[in-house]
């Protein structure tokens, strides 16, 4: 049990660092235990964007925090992959360049798992394999499959 926990933590931490570097184009991130060796202690996340100091997670910007959180959630697949991911407007705080980097990452990730996102962001929707549009008429929702034009 203890070995299993440490080997999963190692694997997730390495995957977190890989996804972080892809989203931030550099820098580093890792997981560690508040009390090293004690698997009952809290889990710490350290993240350092490129050309910046390592700071408290709290001191990161809104967009930076979003990217770290997404990298962490997706890195857990290195422990036990989930069959699908439902992501509801996770890109709300991102600027254009980061939205595009996130979309490319999700497209790659979607080769291994089913990824379903809700987004208002054209940058992200452009990378989807399939798009559904939701409308409302007299208080009732309707859903239609949309034709993909000019998609990545």
């Amino acid at each position, binding site marked *: 049990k203890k070995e299993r926990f440490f080997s999963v933590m190692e694997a997730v931490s390495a995957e977190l660092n890989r996804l972080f570097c892809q989203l931030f184009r550099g820098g580093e991130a890792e997981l560690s235990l508040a009390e090293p060796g004690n698997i009952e202690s809290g889990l710490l996340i350290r993240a350092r964007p490129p050309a910046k100091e390592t700071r408290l997670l709290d001191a990161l910007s809104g967009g930076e925090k979003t990217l770290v*959180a997404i990298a*962490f959630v997706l890195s857990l697949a290195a422990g036990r*992959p989930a069959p699908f991911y439902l992501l509801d407007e996770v890109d709300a705080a991102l600027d254009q360049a980061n939205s595009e980097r996130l979309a490319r990452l999700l497209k790659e990730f979607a080769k291994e798992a089913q990824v*379903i996102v809700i*987004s208002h962001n054209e940058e992200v929707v452009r990378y989807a394999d399939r798009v559904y549009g939701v409308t409302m008429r007299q208080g009732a929702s309707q859903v239609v499959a949309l034709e993909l034009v000019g998609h990545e």
Partner: protein
Amino acid sequence: GTIQRLTVTGFKSFRRRVVIPFHEGFTAIIGENGTGKSNIFDALTFVMGRRSRALRAERMEQLLHAPPNGEPVSEALVEITLDARNVPLGELVPEEGDELLLGRRISGGGSTYRLQGKTCPARSVEGVLSALSIEPDGHHIVEQGMVVDVLERSPRRRREILDEVA
């Protein structure tokens, strides 16, 4: 355990029966504010066992579709088909097969579950989903506005997420 189809009738903003076929890969859902996008995710997590409290409703009745200037419908049904190929479910499921059909119906003040068309207790649904690595409140489902929540939890609660996948 991927989602193959969702069918929703009378749940939240879905009045008439709506069927959404899902596929592998990367799917996007778009639409103006208030049209019912998050309600699709609510339907998916509802049938997997989420409680009404976590679906932006205080009581089960509030999940029943209430049209403008009209009476709420008397029942709602959400069904989902999951891919169950290559997953040994054994005695968890009445009939083995490549697909798993899960349903949850609201009528009166409560709800009932169905698995492969047969009524079953909530526990059976939990067991099957766990075997498919699906958790209705798991890390792989991120609600609107909650993406950084996983960073803001205490280190102890964060460690519990790692326990889930270890």
